């Protein structure tokens, strides 16, 4: 399997901006993550081949960053910030609520493969705590009722084949 045309197009679109080829590694990994929902060893090998980097180098980078997932994830990455300001404003309750509603533990994926629940560190939205993310989108000042609603909405969007948590994205445009 080789790198998809889409990823190649993104990389070639920004190649001229950087003085080294290795600088394109993280953008390539992020794109692979976006395309597959996680970064597999095959993805890493393909990226390494394309950017002329040894597999070990690609792996050591891929394993460093928390946004790059090295195992399959749910279609919706539900991230709840549990750091200090969100914690002070009830993030614990949101985590418990999501666990109850989705029947998953932390870092778990629902049986239908739709949701992965993650507790994350500071999202830089402390003034509107508690903050959560659904895929690419922030939701702030969230309470349990709203969280349940967001999960329901995401479920119905998934069932209807609609994108979830990508409200600011323009397909085919980087970033």
């Amino acid at each position, binding site marked *: 399997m080789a790198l998809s045309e889409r990823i190649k197009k993104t990389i070639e679109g920004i190649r001229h901006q950087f003085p080294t080829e290795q600088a394109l590694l993280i*953008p390539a990994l992020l794109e692979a993550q976006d395309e597959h929902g996680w970064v597999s060893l095959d993805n890493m090998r393909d990226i390494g081949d394309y950017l002329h980097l040894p597999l070990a180098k690609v792996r050591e980078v891929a394993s460093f960053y928390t946004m790059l997932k090295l195992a399959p994830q749910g279609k919706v990455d539900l991230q709840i910030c549990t750091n200090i300001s969100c*914690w002070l404003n009830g993030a*614990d309750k949101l985590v418990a609520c999501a666990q109850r509603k989705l029947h998953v533990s932390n870092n778990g994926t629902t049986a239908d493969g739709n949701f992965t629940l993650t507790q994350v560190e*500071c999202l830089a939205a402390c003034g509107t705590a508690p903050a959560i993310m659904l895929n690419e989108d922030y939701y702030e000042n969230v309470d349990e009722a709203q969280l349940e609603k967001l999960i329901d909405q995401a479920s119905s969007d998934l069932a209807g084949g609609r994108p979830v948590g990508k409200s600011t994205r323009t397909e085919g445009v980087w970033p």
Partner: protein
Amino acid sequence: MMYNNEHYEPVITPNVDKTDCHTLDFYIQHEDGYKALAKALAMNPDAVVDEVKKSNLRGRGGAGFPTGMKWSFMPKDPKNADGTPKPKYLVCNADEGEPGTFKDRLIFTKTPHRMIEGMIIAGHAIASNKGFIYIRGEWFKETRLMQKAIDDAYAKGFLGKNILGTGFNYDLVIYKGAGAYICGEETALLNSLEGKRGEPRLKPPFPAMVGAFGMPSCVNNVETFAAVPYIINKGWEKYAKMGTERSGGTRLIGVSGHINKPGVYELPMNLSINDIIEIAGGVKGGTLKAVIPGGASAPMLKASECGCLTDYDSLAKAGTMAGSGGLIVMNDTVSIPEATYTLLKFYEHESCGQCSQCREGSHWLARMFKRILDGGGTQDDLDYIAKICGNMAGQTICAFADAVTGPALSSVRKFRHEFEELILKGGLTGIGRQEAVSHKMEGAHV
């Protein structure tokens, strides 16, 4: 409120509540947008550096290093071994992630052109033709807004070739991080920008000599750049006057936690912590117990210490730091050991693992705090925490280890009775532990 400062006026946020304040049109029409750029480009680069030096602008990322001085460290005419000129790079640190800090996100979403203009001026000042904006990966919307702002600036000729007909060329490039707090440390950020693990570099050489891609580089925070257009437009004196003797201008203070009106406030530095809490509507849900004045890494202050002023020097004198301007307020319902554990879990997760003192120390501290919360702590633990911290601070490649010891040490020193009570009572159970969420760390057996 006049903030008892006749010189004060908002530098960065005068219009952030207005519709379309993030657009180029608004910036040009209502905020003298890109006028400072024209003025700066007509000045000698050294004069621009001098202006910023005299303004007493200090780095807003956390360390508070004088910005003009940092710019002056950039070599004038660096050459490769073969005599060809080396490029110089300017880097904007937009990897905001210090718990309690959310000011840069406001600039990105409400006044991105101010930062862009500041970067172009800085580029002129250090004779660089290229800037990178390193943005934390979670900011999808913010990254796209910034890219749009950059595209608009190119379209109007504020970026690109021959800017405003002066012959100066400048390009701005966005780079997305992928989730790592440590990449806010400038040399870790540079490694990440080069497509490597975000591990801080041993210094020297400093970035001004060997920075991004091995070239002389200067890294500044978003807010630092955003202050530059004002300084050029209104002059260093006006900016310097707003601040204290050794630190000019205003600061963006993010107030969060148990506070009635959380948010980002642009304030002069002659206010006390108590003043700021009052401005932000007062403590929510109880009386004040403690604050963290400058982002999670700043040592805590007790309520009785909150008369302290919030400039860099006063906070340093009080044994803490102004840091990134994140003021976290905690009321009397909070268990300080539990709050500190929340922070220590974060540090344990974010240590890059390069230095053993930090890798092991942040892990041990988190486990010891957990053990105390769970009822397995001993009096000896409290002394041992101090000992571990002593072996971490100042012993590592970067300041992360020092940052871990900020909350760990200050909480034990200032709220020792809460820890002793937990040790005697056998843990938090029964004295108001919040919702039973699993704080269990996989495989942790101390």
